[in-house]
């Protein structure tokens, strides 16, 4: 509640600063002899507004992170808090209860100990709220006044505003990078804990996967943590079966759409194909589990297999392949369309047919882009969870038979994290090690794909 008020305050002050600065700039304009300023009045206005809003936003971000802690400390310093249980969990429950009543989120307390704390909580909250608002106003006025006083007819407000905008954009792009780093760090932390319990050699090279979340966590059986069957299942379903489906179909549809399709057909088929990319993977999962998997089982029966599994790698792989057709096809489509018309004309003028031109000139020239698309598709496929959960079972199985049940890294991550084991059990932590390996593999694939695309961009320069 409090950060929202502070934000509104910041925007209001920013608007006031904006209007004041613009009025000031207009005044400069009237006073100057030739009616010209170094920058337009709007830039003066934005300069002041940004100098008010941005520092306040920075303060609100920091304040909303530390204020709850400060409030808690103030409450705990109260004599009534001295009798609280020392155990963190109970203590936190009581504090939360008191806070809920203090902020009006709950009607009354349940725990008598919490009742004592409601008043201190209320006091602390209102005190820190006031401090927050006062500091916000102070910052807004100080930075705003500083910026306002810098305004002069020859002040280069435009350059300054452009620079601030650039910094904002830079910040926006840093968010993604910092998030990636954050994810990586948190993964590494848990992965290191896991490898403290189970040897990396057992994990990376063992062929039996069957962690027991109920076993003694202090003495894990390393031979049950062999991840090879999972990696194999992932590669078999995501990179082999799915690609056997997606690469030919994706390429052929791209070739048809760029080279043969009538513009009217293209206008329909291309968006339809892109809708395929927007279907939630859960829906593909239903399709795989309810339609494809039973159909494959029936076919296997008809072919004389005695006891085919109702869940199969083939079903998951086929549906996953269909799911990633749009990834392959849209990258291939773009890179084939990017081959200069001159190449196509050159080949046709030699007396080549359309299909010869595609096979011998367009596809080779577009190959780097096509390969990049395939690699992005592979990294998408091996990170896919829902289809495999629903269609390919959770049984780790090291086999080459596509009709048998298989499992993948992502499915096991889900299974391990949603299991009943405690969080510091190696079975649970193994999910992080699996995630880390998966992350590194997809990162590597994306990296290679980007390098290939970069080379491709230079091809015709």
């Amino acid at each position, binding site marked *: 509640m409090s950060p929202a008020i502070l934000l509104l305050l910041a925007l209001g002050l920013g608007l006031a600063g904006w209007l004041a600065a613009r009025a000031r700039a207009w005044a400069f304009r009237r006073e100057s002899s030739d009616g010209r300023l170094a920058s337009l009045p709007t830039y003066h206005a934005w300069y002041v507004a940004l100098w008010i809003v941005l520092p306040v936003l920075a303060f609100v971000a920091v304040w909303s992170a530390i204020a709850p802690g400060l409030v808690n400390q103030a409450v705990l310093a109260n004599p009534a808090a001295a009798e609280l249980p020392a155990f963190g969990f109970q203590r936190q429950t009581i504090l939360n209860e008191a806070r809920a009543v203090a902020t009006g989120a709950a009607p009354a307390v349940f725990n008598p100990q919490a009742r004592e704390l409601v008043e201190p909580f209320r006091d602390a909250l209102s005190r820190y709220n006031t401090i927050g608002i006062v500091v916000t106003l102070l910052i807004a006025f100080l930075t705003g006044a500083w910026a306002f006083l810098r305004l002069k007819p020859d002040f280069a407000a435009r350059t300054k505003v452009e620079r601030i905008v650039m910094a904002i954009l830079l910040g926006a792009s840093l968010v993604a990078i910092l998030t990636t780093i954050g994810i990586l760090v948190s993964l590494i932390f848990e992965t290191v804990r896991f490898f403290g319990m189970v040897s990396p050699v057992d994990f990376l090279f063992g062929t039996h996967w069957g962690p027991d979340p109920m076993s003694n966590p202090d003495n894990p059986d390393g031979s049950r943590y062999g991840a090879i069957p999972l990696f194999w299942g992932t590669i078999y379903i995501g990179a082999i079966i799915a690609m056997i489906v997606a690469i030919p179909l994706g390429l052929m549809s791209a070739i048809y759409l760029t080279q043969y399709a009538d*513009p009217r057909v293209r206008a329909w088929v291309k968006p339809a194909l892109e809708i395929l990319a927007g279907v939630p993977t859960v829906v593909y999962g239903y399709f795989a589990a309810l339609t494809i998997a039973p159909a494959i089982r029936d076919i296997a029966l008809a072919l004389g297999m005695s006891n085919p599994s109702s869940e199969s790698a083939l079903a998951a792989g086929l549906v996953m392949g269909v799911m990633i057709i749009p990834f392959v096809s849209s990258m291939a489509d773009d890179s084939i369309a990017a081959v200069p018309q001159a190449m*196509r004309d*050159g080949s046709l*003028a*030699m*007396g080549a*047919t359309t299909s010869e031109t595609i096979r011998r000139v367009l596809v080779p020239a577009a190959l780097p882009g096509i390969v990049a698309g395939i690699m992005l598709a592979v990294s998408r496929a091996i990170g896919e969870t829902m289809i495999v959960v629903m269609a390919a079972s959770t049984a780790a199985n090291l086999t080459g038979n596509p009709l048998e049940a298989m499992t993948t890294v992502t499915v096991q991550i889900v299974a391990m994290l949603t299991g009943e084991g405690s969080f510091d059990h190696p079975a649970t932590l193994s999910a992080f090690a699996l995630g880390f390996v998966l992350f590194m593999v997809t990162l590597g694939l994306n990296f290679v794909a980007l390098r290939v695309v970069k080379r491709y961009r230079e*091809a*015709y320069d």
Partner: protein
Amino acid sequence: MVTVVHENLEVTDAKMSARDVSVFYGDKKAIDEVSIDIPTKYVTAFIGPSGCGKSTFLRTLNRMNDTIPSARVEGEITLDGDDIYRSKMDVVQLRARVGMVFQKPNPFPKSIYDNIAYGPKIHGLAEGKDELDAIVERSLKRAGLWEEVKDRLQDSGTALSGGQQQRLCIARAIAVDPEVILMDEPCSALDPIATAKIEELIAELNGRYAIVIVTHSMQQAARVSQRTAFFHLGKMVEYGRTSDIFTNPLEQRTQDYITGRYG
């Protein structure tokens, strides 16, 4: 308005003939009833201001306009007396006989060798590697490029300089042994030295192939061609010996163009 054809222009050995050819892009008429005989032995130049339709007309001669969906051709164009727009005409065969060199050099992003070998391979002209090697060498020699590239036939064709790329494209066209070579402003993307080399090459190829060159440089037309046709606003205004067109044009518009009044 009819085309003025010079009286002393005898084309007894027409390789290609156009009769009342009109080209439409959608509803727009780009070429208006052009009739011309392209001689077997000589270089024929098409000149005219930008947008006059000379390139469009050139592209009808090997049906490259087919690649533009809205383009439509009326009238008759023959190659050795055969109508190239008849329904049974095999465009692949036609383009093997009527080669083309484009405005901007467009070598394939393949090796120099593969660029030349492309045509012979798709038309099955060579039996075995030795014969293909021989075709590549002969074509590069005819295009005057052999000495420059013989030690690096496996390098990419796109790594050559602009002038070398254009000669590579000419060699590529020669490799399928065409009867006619169409050149669409082949020097407009090149510097003067590379241009001079291409013009030299055209002079050497003259007599072996019927060559039609579109150019917006009147000096170039005067230097390389024996026949010149002047196009203006989609019509062919005047056609005659190059020397006559440049020294003694019969039409006022030709006179104006070659004296630089417009264009």
